């Protein structure tokens, strides 16, 4: 889009974010829009759910994001025997100091990749999801703050559900965005095949930001202007998702909650920041809407995303 790139350098943060996206794009090839959404999710202080089959670059994306932003990264492979302590950490008796010492789990990192989250039993899932919501871990009567920024990328494989514990709707709601990566197009695939292992490049990546800068950007995103006309539009979208349109096809049995509306605004603000605009446009809302609404509407992420696409087409700009 010529117009958007022309206005991309509108703010200093937008220029640096463009650089970051460019660097990410060299590692995760041909996935500009998912990368942009993932970055917007991080800037909006939300968590990301990636639903896709293995091997399309989910871990690469998480690692590249952490490396480029200069954040500490850890990865937890969720399995059916994973316990909450394996994620959160455990207190072990230290004979030398005659006391219990807390060994922090992998969650005490800024970017946490929770791989195949639907393989773990619900107890472990909810331990992670609670930590995501509270941004702290309470254990043995002690509350420990998680690092700031704190960003969880959870993945799940939607096609293999045997022996899995699919996340209930209320848990899905904790993820700001749910995206799919999908197969790369042929040019990108050719580049992948000829270019060798992408992960090895991550080690060479120079960080382009640090936690403090990231926190600044997050504050900046939260302050992006939202006009009354845009709120009208968001409200119309929410109402349409609740089936107030009088049309049976678009009506859903589970509409978007007010919190989903707030999250939609937060994501759209971050998206506008990446676009270098001081205000949110309907285009920003439309860009993030399927990812925000998809997993919150009935029928699974994919059906929800399709439904939200048709909602977008159905609701005119006020």
């Amino acid at each position, binding site marked *: 889009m010529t117009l958007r790139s022309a206005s991309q350098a509108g703010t200093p943060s937008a220029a640096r974010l463009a650089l970051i996206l460019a660097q990410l794009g060299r590692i995760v090839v041909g996935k500009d829009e998912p990368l942009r959404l993932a970055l917007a999710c991080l800037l909006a202080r939300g968590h990301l759910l990636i639903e896709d089959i293995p091997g399309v670059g989910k871990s690469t994306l998480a690692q590249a994001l952490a490396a480029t932003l200069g954040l500490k990264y850890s990865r937890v492979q969720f399995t059916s025997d994973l316990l909450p302590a394996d994620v959160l950490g455990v207190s072990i008796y230290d004979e030398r100091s005659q006391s219990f010492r807390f060994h922090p789990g992998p969650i005490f990192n800024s970017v946490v990749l929770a791989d195949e989250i639907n393989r773990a039993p619900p107890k472990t899932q909810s331990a992670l999801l609670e930590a995501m919501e509270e941004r702290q871990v309470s254990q043995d009567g002690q509350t420990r703050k998680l690092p700031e920024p704190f960003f969880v990328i959870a993945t799940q494989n939607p096609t293999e559900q045997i022996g899995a514990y699919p996340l209930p709707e209320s848990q899905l709601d904790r993820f700001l965005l749910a995206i799919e990566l999908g197969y790369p197009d042929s040019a990108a695939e050719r580049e992948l095949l000829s270019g060798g292992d992408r992960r090895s490049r991550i080690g060479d990546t120079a960080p382009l930001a640090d936690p403090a800068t990231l926190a600044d950007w997050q504050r900046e995103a939260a302050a992006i202007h939202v006009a009354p006309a845009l709120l009208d539009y968001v409200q119309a979208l929410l109402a349409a998702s609740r089936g107030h349109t009088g049309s049976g*096809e678009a009506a859903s049995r589970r509409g978007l909650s007010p919190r989903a509306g707030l999250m939609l605004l937060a994501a759209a603000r971050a998206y506008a920041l990446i676009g270098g605009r001081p205000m949110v446009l309907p285009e920003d809302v439309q860009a993030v809407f399927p990812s925000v609404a998809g997993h919150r509407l009935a029928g699974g992420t994919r059906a929800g995303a399709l439904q939200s696409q048709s909602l977008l087409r159905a609701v005119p700009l006020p």
Partner: protein
Amino acid sequence: MNASTWFTLRPQRGTTTVRDLLTPAQIRCLGVLLLAAQLPQAPHLPIWVAATGIMLVGLRIVLLRRDRLRPQAPPARIPSWALAVFAVAAALAVRASFGYLAGRDPSVAFLYILVAIKFLETRSTRDGTLLICLACFLLVTPFFYSQSPLAAIVVLPAVLGVGVALDALTCNRTALPAFDWRSALRRSAVMILQGLPVAALLFVLFPRLAAPLWGLPSDYGAQSGLSDSMSPGQISELSLSDAVAFRVDFDGPVPPPALRYWRGPVFSRFDGRTWSPGPFMLRGGVLPVEGPVVTYTVTLEPNHRRSLFALDLPVALPVFSGGAAPLIGAPYITIDQQLLMRAPMGAESLRYSQQSVLRSRFPAMSSLESRANLGVGEGNPRTLALAAQLRALHPDDSAYIGAILEKFTREDFVYTLAPPLFERDPVDLFLFGERRGFCEHYASAFVLLLRAAGIPARVVTGYQGGAVNPRGGYMIVRQSDAHAWAEAMIGGQWQRYDPTAAVAPSRIELGLGGALSAGEPVPFLARLDATWLTGVQLAWDAFNHDWRRNFIDFNRDRQRSLWRDWRLDQFAPWQVVALIALTIFAWGAMVVGWLMWKRRHQERALVLWDDLNRRLARAGLPRQPHEGPLAFASRAAQRWPQFAIAFAAIGESFAELRYGSVPVARERDALVATLERAIDVLPAPAALRTTH
């Protein structure tokens, strides 16, 4: 036939394209319209017709719902041959139910079912339009039965529904999933309100015809009111009814209660039990009596009879107001001074103006009258014996009549609404047995006693009294005011005698409620103790009466007199038509001007943006309703790359103005100026269309 074959499922086929097919939302909308149009008509139909029509519409809606719940299954469809069979069956059933088909009632019933059948096979936009026309026709049918304000209010939802359905049918298809019935309803209501002045203008000014183009066919319906004969118990039964017989608007002061004798059917023939009209139903003439003339207008409720009512004694023939006269024909007055129409009354109420002189004595019209009013019928021997006995004592006519009236007053006769049933020799039983009776018993016995003594006498039925409605200043005469009295010929003059007055004088002064003892089943509205409910009822009656007077009966004469009042009669008809056209045009200009004024006071940026959207749409690039400013501008820039810079400026400045925060007025103005200049760069739509 196996019922399941009616609802066979098969994939949709045929020549209609997907674009022409109605969406489920549109069909539902039509269904709601049909229900709204059916409901006002339903009370006038046999219950099976009403239920069938509503159920057919419901069936379609249920099938739609089934389609929605099972999106994979082929849409449910009732084969058209089944619908045809059903239509024929409905016609036969209507024929069987009514006994005939070519009349108002069966036709309306058939239309009612047919519209529902049409809805079952409605699939394309064309069907939908046809269905809306049919619904409009269905909406008119309740007025065949009643033209009361209530009937008008009841069809209002359906009128709104027509607007909503039209809105849904013409709605932009891409925006259809977002079809919002609330806003459609609001739009429809606003448009009806905007049309009201035009409707009012046409109502007042559009030249009316002297007679309606077609009369309402009247089917034989329920009857109430005085009948063509009188036997014991008939009037007392009628007196149990609150129903209005007629309403009267007096031109001058209202006559006192004792003089309010509304003359109706006159009976000369008596068979010992039942009174019936004599040979004097023939055309007579208005008697030349003198006295102050009372002028008034009667609005007679439909009663399917030929009688008209007038205060005793009518001195002119009634003059029908408006278009009714040519249909009914001129009324006439019989020899025994009752007013008759040539044909029974139709389903509509009737208004006529009438003149009377209030007097109880008038000359007989024909010498034959004295001979024809002497028959005593069969039976009642004791009454005849009593008459002979009394006559021997009082050879003078007046003295004899006085003696009879005195007998009623002196002896313990009781005036009651619930007299016993007199099977044989009713007058004997009444006079010598029960001594309890209603006005018809007294009148009957009185006349028989006179006839037995050789004095010509006859029974007159009609209404006595009537109450002035304080809310409207007009008089209501109810069925409970029905009355029977007597006339005797003395010295060539007919003299009115009311034997009931001798027994219960308060019946004449206070009406039924005052004359009956406690515990009698007096109709609610005839009681003397007024409650708030009576007040509400009277107010509603006054409203109905005004409605009838001012709207339903607004005919050519009234229109002409209104034009005279407004000094419009000096213009030629074409000038009036031109005036109407001019006024409608002015009104349209006002509405459009108001819309434009509103638009001008909207944000300047929005106005410019809307203009641009219109121009680009004409150039072949309409903006999608959901398309944001930047997305649309970049699409336009791809279409016309030579204007990419202008489109970029347009998109960004409009986005900034509409969605940004630009608190400084000068900055806003600068952005608006940028937007305006950038739009000015673009050529006209026609030129844009041809450039690539």
